[in-house]
C-alpha cells in the first residue's frame, strides 16, 4: 500500500491577472522504504509537488492520498496533525527556529506530540548523536555552519519516527563535500532504519544516490 498517491494533481498560482501553472496532471505514488528523487530544472514544479504531498499547500485540481486519507478533504487542523505525526521536513534553507538551540529544535516536534520529557530528551540526544552533532547541542542556529544546521534539520525530521521524510533540495545550500556527507547520512538512515525519503533536486550527486527518480518538466512528469 503506497504512503502517498496522487491523482491528476494540478496547481495553478494566480499572480495578479496572470495564471502560472506549476503542476499539471501529476500521477505518482511513494511506497514505504523508498529513496525517491524528484528531479528537474528550476521552475519545473519540484517544490510545489513536495509541498502538495507534504500537506503544506493545497492543489487546485486532483487528489492526494496520504495513507489512503484524501488530503484535499482534510481540515487545516487535520493537515497540521498529519504533518506533526507522519511527516518530517528538511528544507533547502534549513529553516530551524532561530531562538531555539539545536537540541530544542529537535525536541520541539516531540513537545507538540506530547511525548514525556525523559523520553523526549533521550530521543533528541540520540538523533543529534546519529547525525554527528553531539558537541553542538546547545548552540543556536546562528552559531552553526550550514552543514551543521542541515544535520540538525535531519535530526528534527527523523526524531519522531515519521512515515516519510520530505527534503526540498537538501544539498542546494551546501558545498559538494558537505552535501555528499549529508546524502550518505540520509541513505544510511533509509537503509538501516527503513525511513522513506522523497527529495527534490537538480544535483547530479544526489540523483546518483537515489534508488528511483521522477523527472518533472513544466509541471508534468516526463515518462
Amino acid at each position, binding site marked *: 500500500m503506497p504512503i502517498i498517491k496522487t491523482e491528476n494533481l494540478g496547481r495553478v498560482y494566480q499572480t495578479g491577472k496572470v495564471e502560472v501553472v506549476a503542476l499539471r496532471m501529476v500521477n505518482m505514488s511513494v511506497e514505504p522504504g523508498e529513496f525517491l528523487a524528484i528531479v528537474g530544472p528550476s521552475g519545473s514544479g519540484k*517544490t510545489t509537488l513536495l509541498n502538495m504531498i507534504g500537506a*503544506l499547500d493545497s492543489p487546485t485540481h486532483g487528489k492526494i492520498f496520504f495513507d489512503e486519507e484524501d488530503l484535499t478533504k482534510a481540515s487545516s487542523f487535520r493537515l*497540521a496533525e498529519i*504533518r506533526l505525526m507522519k511527516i518530517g521536513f528538511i528544507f533547502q534553507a534549513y*529553516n530551524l527556529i532561530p531562538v531555539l538551540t539545536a537540541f*530544542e529544535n529537535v525536541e520541539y516536534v516531540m*513537545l*507538540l506530540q506530547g511525548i514525556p520529557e525523559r523520553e523526549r530528551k533521550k530521543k533528541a540526544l540520540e538523533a543529534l548523536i546519529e547525525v554527528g552533532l553531539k558537541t553542538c547541542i546547545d548552540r543556536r542556529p546562528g552559531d552553526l555552519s550550514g552543514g551543521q544546521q542541515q544535520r540538525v534539520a535531519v535530526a528534527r525530521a527523523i526524531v519522531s519516527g515519521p512515515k516519510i521524510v520530505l527534503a526540498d533540495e537538501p544539498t542546494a545550500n551546501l558545498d559538494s563535500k558537505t552535501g555528499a556527507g549529508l546524502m550518505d547520512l540520509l541513505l544510511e538512515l533509509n537503509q538501516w532504519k527503513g525511513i522513506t525519503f522523497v527529495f527534490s533536486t537538480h544535483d547530479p550527486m544526489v540523483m546518483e544516490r537515489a534508488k528511483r527518480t521522477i523527472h518533472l518538466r513544466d509541471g508534468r512528469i516526463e515518462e
Partner: protein
Amino acid sequence: MKVFFKIAWRNVFRNWRRSLLTLLVIAVGLAGLIFTWALADGSAEQSIGNYTDYLTGHVQIQKKGFQKEMSIFLALDNPREVIAKISQDPEIKNFTERIAGRAFISLGEKSAGMVLVGVDPSSEVRVTNMWQAMIAGRYLEPKDRAAMVLGKAMSIRLGANLGDKVAVITQAADGSLGAASYKVVGIYNTGSGAFEGTYAFVTLPAARDLFALEGRSTAIVIKAENLKAVSYLKSSLQARFDPQKVEVLDWGQIIPELLRSIKVREAVANLVLLNVFLIVASGILNTILMAVVERRREFGILMALGTRGYQIVVMVIMESVLLGMFGVLSGSALGGAVVLILDMTGFDLSRFAKYLGTGTPAIPSIIYPIITIERLFILAAMVLVVAVLAAFYPAVKAAALKPAPAIRQMETI
C-alpha cells in the same frame, strides 16, 4: 505551553532595539496615564476639600426643602433633637449648628444681596477652616453679638473696611422685617470672587436674633472622619430621620456645581486616558505586526512542523503580554516616582491661572496628585488588556498563514 513561552520570551530579546522602543512607548504612556489620573484625583479631592473645609462640611442635616428654597421658614424645628441623635456617631468627626438665609447688606449708598451665615465659632472652627482664610482683622468669637466677617470681594463692592458698620435687612421667620447692623471685624479671602461676594458670617445668636429663629437653626453641618466615609455616613444618618421631614445631604448635593465641575474634569481626564491608550495600543500593534510580518517565514516553519493555529496565536500574544508586563513595571515605577515627587512639591498651575481658571476653591493653583494602589492595578491591567487586544489581529493573521507560501515569503500579512 512552556516551549511557546520560551520562544516568545527569546523573541522579545531577539530584536531588543524594537522591543526597547515599544517598552518605552508603553512605559511613558503608562506613566502619563498614572500622572493624568493622579492629577485629576488630586485636584478633585482638593476642590472638594476646599469647599467642604471653607463652607459646607461633608454632610448637612436640613429640614426638607431648605436646600432648594433656602427659605428661613424651612429651618429645623428642634435642632437639639437632631443633635441628640447624631452626637455619639463614631463616623462623625465634628459637627456644628448654622443658620443661613438670604439678606441685603448695605453700607452708605451701596448695597448687595448676599447669604448671611450664622455660625457658632467655638464648634465651627472644628468643622470648617474659614478662620484660616482671614486676610484682615479676625474671625468671629463666641461673645460677638454684632460682629461680621466679610469676603474680600464683598468688602470691595461695598467699600467696607475693618471697623465699618454695615446694615442688614431680611425677612424674619416670624413674618417681620429683620434688621441689624454689624461691625466688620474681619475680611476673608478664598481666591473665589463668587464665593467671597456671596457669603458673610455672623455668630449664631446674632443670626437667630435677626431671623427670629430662637433656639432653631437651618442646618447641622458635619465633618466626617474622611471623604470616603461620606456616602455611608449620609445613608446611616438618613435612616435615623423621617425623609419627609429631614434631609441628609452630602457635599455633592449641597454644591452640585462643584460635582459637575469635577465630573467635567473627570471626563477630560478620561479622554486623555483614552488617547494615551490608543497611542500605547498602536505602539504595541505596530511592533507585533512588524515582528509577525518579519517572521512569517518562521511561522510557516512552525506550522509545517505541525504547530496548530491557536498555538501560534498564544505565542504571539505571549510576546505582546511580556512586552506589556515589562512596560507596566517600568511605567509604574516612572509614573509612581513622578506622582510621589509632585505629591511632596505640588504641581504648580498658577502661571496658567488666566487660561485654566485655577486659583479658586474649585480649581486649586497647586495640585497635589494622588495615586492609589487600586488605580495602579486598574491601569496596569488595562495596559495588559490593550497588549492582548493589540496583538490579537497580528496573531490571528499569523495563524491564518499557509505554511508553504509563508516559508517562501510569498504570502503577505
